[in-house]
């Protein structure tokens, strides 16, 4: 029958792991750069989209106000995506959250889940509607400068793709993300309860 003191002695006697601090330093630096690069690529991609839109807006003499409004809506959508990405990226990697007390950290993760849900449902719906509206407005001018068939095909393909994204791809994505987040929240709530008992 062993007492706790004996267990403590066993614990103290364990061999210390051999750790290579230079190697870990090298890895933390590489990892930090990788995160920074990911952010940079996302920002560059969206900035490129905005630049292309601006260029097209400047170079092509659109005649109808509907087209100008549609381009404005597209750019607003791009900016929205850019800021949403940046904000989520910063939240995911907001390392200072790891410095909080466990219950605050758990709360932070719960808030993150709620905000992700809001982004994936309400905000994405607004984004889709705006994009759809932008396309309809854009194709008004196309209708006047080209054939009706070209307008119908172009509009159908664009709207079709948006609908596929909204009703199929996004729902798959939401289901997957929520399943994973729910599982995480479940575990975190259990832990939170353990700490408060």
């Amino acid at each position, binding site marked *: 029958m*062993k007492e*706790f003191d004996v267990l403590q002695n*066993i614990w103290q006697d364990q061999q210390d792991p051999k750790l290579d*601090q230079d190697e870990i330093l090298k890895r933390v630096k590489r990892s930090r750069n990788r995160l920074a690069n990911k952010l940079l690529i996302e920002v560059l991609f969206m900035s490129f989209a905005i630049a292309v839109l601006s260029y097209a807006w400047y170079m092509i003499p659109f005649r109808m106000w509907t087209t100008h409004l549609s381009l404005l809506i597209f750019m607003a959508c791009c900016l929205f995506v850019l800021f949403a990405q940046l904000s989520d990226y910063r939240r995911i990697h907001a390392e200072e959250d790891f410095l*909080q007390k466990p219950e605050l950290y758990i709360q932070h993760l719960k808030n993150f889940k709620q905000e992700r849900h809001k982004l994936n449902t309400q905000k994405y719906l607004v984004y889709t509607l705006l994009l759809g509206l932008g396309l309809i407005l854009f194709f008004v001018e196309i209708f006047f400068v080209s054939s009706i068939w070209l307008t119908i095909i172009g509009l159908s393909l664009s709207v079709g793709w948006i609908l596929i994204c909204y009703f199929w791809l996004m729902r798959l994505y939401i289901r997957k993300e929520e399943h994973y987040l729910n599982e995480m929240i479940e*575990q975190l709530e259990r*832990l939170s309860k353990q700490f408060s008992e």
Partner: protein
Amino acid sequence: MVNKEKLFQEIFQANSKKIYHLCYGYTGDSDTANDLMQETFLKVWQNLDKFRNQAMISTWIYRIAVNTCLSHLRVEKRQAKDELTENIIESKAEEFSEKNEQIALLYRCISKLEENERIIITLVLDEVPYPEIAEISGISEGNLRVKIHRIKHKLTELYNRYERI
């Protein structure tokens, strides 16, 4: 930058073993403990500037380790281990000895505890002062003492039960 590296190395030397014990106690698996320890020190590096004015650096590092362990599921699900999967700890054939068996059994018993109990007891075993454990776990010292008493009893019972098997 050189100063930052020096500071990091000092912090690493002073805390890595205890952090590894904490992660091992939490996961019951040395490879995962290795991943979690690396992730903890990654966060330490990223927050090093914020650490500089802190009196109790070890408390901050423990808290990062605890939160990293708590969100272990997230890491596991993301499968985003990539570079973290390589072992920092030198792999070597475990010596077979009674002492090693006892240590393995102790880890096995710790893994049977609830998650928060695993974290608290590994800190107790590593002789981290109670006020610091209270600060790390975010519970009052009074509650912590009661909790520790209960966990010690539970762990001792588990150990004695498994030892007989």
